[in-house]
């Protein structure tokens, strides 16, 4: 039972990975294959920052998020923007190239050693709820994920910027005619994507180990969360992430090393049986 609850908590983290990806997928109809490598890169930045300043990783996380926002904004303007409007292939090829570059830059800078972020006393702390002992860190992860999802959906639903994003997502050409600077919207969205991922990276690093090669797997988990939930649905991505986390936890109950495999299999089965994702169930009712 506790394994499954923990799985759901990790799943919230997958949802957070996926949220950024869902933003760019819904908006630009393209995927950033280097998404996971940016998550790992953010984890390294957090590690370096907290070692350098001698403070808790959570203290540096907001700064890393801002840095990654700028990285995302610049990356979109300088590189990814040039691939748009030329079909589905160029963004895939360019971001795959980016993924290889990032992995090897991290290898050069930080070596292949496995690292993690020291959560301090937070790591072992737990509280008792309804007879179950729950870790404070997983609970905090869940709370932060919910807060970010809530903030994102609030921004999308009721601000001018959110309206501009939704309009651009529906038809970027029409949005452009209405006076929306779509290139700027794309760049801000990419910045937000990486900023959200940076927050997720902080919690990822405090829970588990990372090294320069663990990025692609993060990207797959993120994408699976988006598809499981249903493309175009913000809360669906969280639900998809939690389903993925539960599947992996259930798999690891059978055999500790089966976790990711069972998660992938559940993803493929859902893809086959329910192409619209979990949210298509709700719409049908």
């Amino acid at each position, binding site marked *: 039972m506790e394994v499954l609850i923990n799985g759901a908590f990790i799943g919230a983290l997958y949802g957070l990975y996926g949220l950024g990806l869902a933003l760019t997928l819904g908006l630009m109809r393209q995927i950033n294959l280097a998404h996971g490598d940016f998550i790992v890169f953010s984890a390294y930045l957090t590690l370096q920052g907290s070692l350098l300043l001698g403070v808790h990783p959570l203290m540096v996380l907001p700064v890393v998020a801002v840095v990654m926002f700028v990285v995302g904004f610049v990356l979109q303007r300088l590189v990814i923007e040039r*691939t748009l409007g030329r079909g589905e292939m160029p963004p895939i090829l*360019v971001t795959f*190239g*980016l993924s*290889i570059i990032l992995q*090897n830059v991290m290898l*050069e800078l930080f070596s292949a050693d496995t690292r993690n972020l020291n959560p301090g006393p937070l790591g072992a702390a737990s509280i008792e709820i309804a007879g179950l002992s729950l870790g404070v860190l997983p609970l905090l992860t869940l709370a932060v994920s919910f807060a970010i999802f809530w903030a994102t959906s609030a921004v999308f639903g009721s601000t001018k910027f959110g309206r501009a994003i939704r309009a651009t997502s529906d038809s970027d050409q029409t949005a452009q005619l209405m006076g929306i600077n779509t290139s700027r919207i794309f760049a801000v969205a990419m910045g937000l994507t990486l900023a959200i991922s940076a927050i997720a990276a902080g919690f990822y690093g405090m829970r588990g180990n990372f090294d320069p090669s663990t990025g692609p797997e993060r990207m797959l988990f993120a994408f699976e969360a988006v598809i499981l939930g249903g493309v175009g649905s913000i809360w669906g991505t969280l639900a998809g992430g939690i389903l993925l986390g539960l599947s992996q936890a259930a798999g690891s109950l059978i055999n500790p090393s089966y976790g990711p495999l069972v998660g*992938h299999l559940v993803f*493929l089965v859902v893809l086959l049986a329910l192409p619209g994702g979990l949210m298509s169930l709700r719409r049908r009712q």
Partner: protein
Amino acid sequence: MRLPSINRSFIVLAVIVLFLILVPILGSRSTVNLVAEMAAVLAIALMWNLLAGFGGMVFMGFQVFVGIGGYAVFMAANGFQVLPFPFILLSAALCALTALAIMPILSRLQGAQFAIASWVISEVVRLTVFQTSVLGGGGGISLTAMRSVPRELRMYGTYGSAALVLIVALVVCVFLMRSRVGLALRAIRDNATAAEAMGIDLRRTQRLVMMIAAAVAGAGGGAYYMLALQIGPGTAFSMNWMAITLFVVILGGIGTLEGPIVGVVVYFLLRETLSDLGSVYFILLGLMAILVTLLFPKGAWGGLRQLIGQDLLPIRRNPSESKG
């Protein structure tokens, strides 16, 4: 002088076959092994290009066929303790069946979703092999059947297998792309809805091409790992295969037949001269792939073609030819 395009293809194919025959006669041992490796890599890249460049199916988990092809040869040859070379046919058959099995999942996906789903499928196979002790688990297996094979036979047999796979890959590309299937494939890539309206069976065409590409790439994987003599889930199903394939195809020129041939030469030149640089070498490869995609989408062959003024392996039929 402009020859009818199919004759030009025959001449160029004949030159390539002649080259592949001359290498083991004139070349040193290390040259033969290098060309064998190039042939296997080129065959795999040509097949990925067939799917992505001509068919618009960006199959990011292509290493699944390389791995299955390699493991098929190792398991069969070790099991019977016989010469491994004929088993690349088994690799091809197994990979074609794998393609057939995964098409129901992939056929309704496009673009990014197709790319990631194919990647996930490859991960599922990698993780399964990793957990299967009969297949050597995480440690992999050696091609023990090769131990009793004399050194000369081992070298020429492996070279011959790889060269044969490459020739099949080239012939398949030229004839498939000149056939109705090739025409249908490109029509689907350019506009799936319009293609279907013209009476093209979308799923059947994509399934057929996927099976062919998987079969040849699987045979290429089988030949490659006969050369390596050692296979493991971490290397055989590694994303590195995707990186190499993409580099060869993009740098040479995606969506052309000549492109990957140019690309494989450039890739091996770079590898033989720069691979000592380690991760800096991979950073350079990644940078080049991005720059070529952004600035020279037609690749190195696009530039060469302007100099030569004609295709060497034409896949477009001239209207005048069909009249005569």
